[in-house]
């Protein structure tokens, strides 16, 4: 039985692996759209790694497309599902909570 942190890391690993090479018999593939020169970059609050603003695109045969920021994938790699987007709305920072089960669905990890 995996903890949430472990599930998160498993998701990140699957995404990064699929980016390099589609796994045999998989019903999905992963591509990346590079950040442009105008996109703001940020640094990971935990390890300081640079996050340029690339977007990962998971394309699943039946579920369709799922876009994830490099931030999302990076924090999943740290075992986290909650992260700050960097946007501020009406004075409050905007955060995202990722749903592990939903993401696992795109990666056939249930």
């Amino acid at each position: 039985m995996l903890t949430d942190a472990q599930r998160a890391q498993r998701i990140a690993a699957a995404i990064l692996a699929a980016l390099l090479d589609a796994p045999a018999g998989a019903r999905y593939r992963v591509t990346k759209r590079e950040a442009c020169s105008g996109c703001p970059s940020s640094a990971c609050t935990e390890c300081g790694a640079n996050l340029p603003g690339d977007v990962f695109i998971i394309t699943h045969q039946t579920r369709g497309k799922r876009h994830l920021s490099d931030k999302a994938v990076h924090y999943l790699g740290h075992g986290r599902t909650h992260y700050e987007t960097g946007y501020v709305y009406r004075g409050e920072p905007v955060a995202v909570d990722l749903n592990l089960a939903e993401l696992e669905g795109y990666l056939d990890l249930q």
Partner: protein
Amino acid sequence: MAHAIDEIDRRIIALLQEDGRRPNVDVAAELGLAEGTIRKRLERLLTDSVIRITAVVDPARVGLNTSAVITVQVDLSRVDEIVRQLAAFPEVQSVAIATGNWDIILEAVFPTDGQLLAFLKDRVSTIPGVRRTETSHILRRVKHVGTWELPLELAAPTSSVVEPEMLQQNPLLAELGEAHIAEIARKSRLKTLEAGERLYHENDMAEDVYVVYQGRLALLMEVGQGRQAMIGSVGRREICGAAAVLTPPVQTETARCLERTTVIAIPASVLRELCLKDCRICHKVMELIATQVSTQLRDARFQLTHMLKGDERPVGTA
């Protein structure tokens, strides 16, 4: 070999043929370009000997009442020296070496017939190598080489350089900034079509976005049985073929020239590349297209409304 002159060069030439002393600033204003652009192009046209700026005299107004075309047969081994001498005569307006029965054809003007005769007897026939001459009196000049205007349709359309200023005429494109406009201009080209020619067809794969530089295009759609209905038109500074940057990149209408039209063809791939490099560009480009298309949509809806307002039958559902 034809020099590479494009549409802009031809328009500059046309303006200067009307008035060779027209200031660059005026020409620039007339064509919607910068003075520097005109100056640069004019320098090139002059350096490349595409044009020469000169004063054209009307002989009749200065007492030269006799005009003649004189054809000369010569000993060809001496033709170079002969033409050199003939060209040096001040009465001679033009000298040319040609094929056919006559080796040299020249035009000359004189105050009187007597002086034409003296010219032939004493100056032309005495040149070593001249065998025979034949003279035709010009009774009336109808059209003269000095007033010849370059026919735009005949001059070989070769290069089709797009100047950045041409893109800047579209106010939304101008917002992209000089560096990006320059890059787009470099990769775009001009296309000129005559009235009736089609720029693109409905359902064609769209590859270029077009900005109209001058002229006007009718936009048409198929209405069955090979007939087409005109649903709108685009003129100067407006855009058509925007489908090239949308999904799917398929033309939604046919564009046909209502008059001689020049468009700037911007390859969609250039815009897409720029968009990927900097999404601020994409924002501008897409905003431009969204605005343009939404204006056309507004027009189409007005037309629809107008058509239906005149209709007595009940239509649609509320």
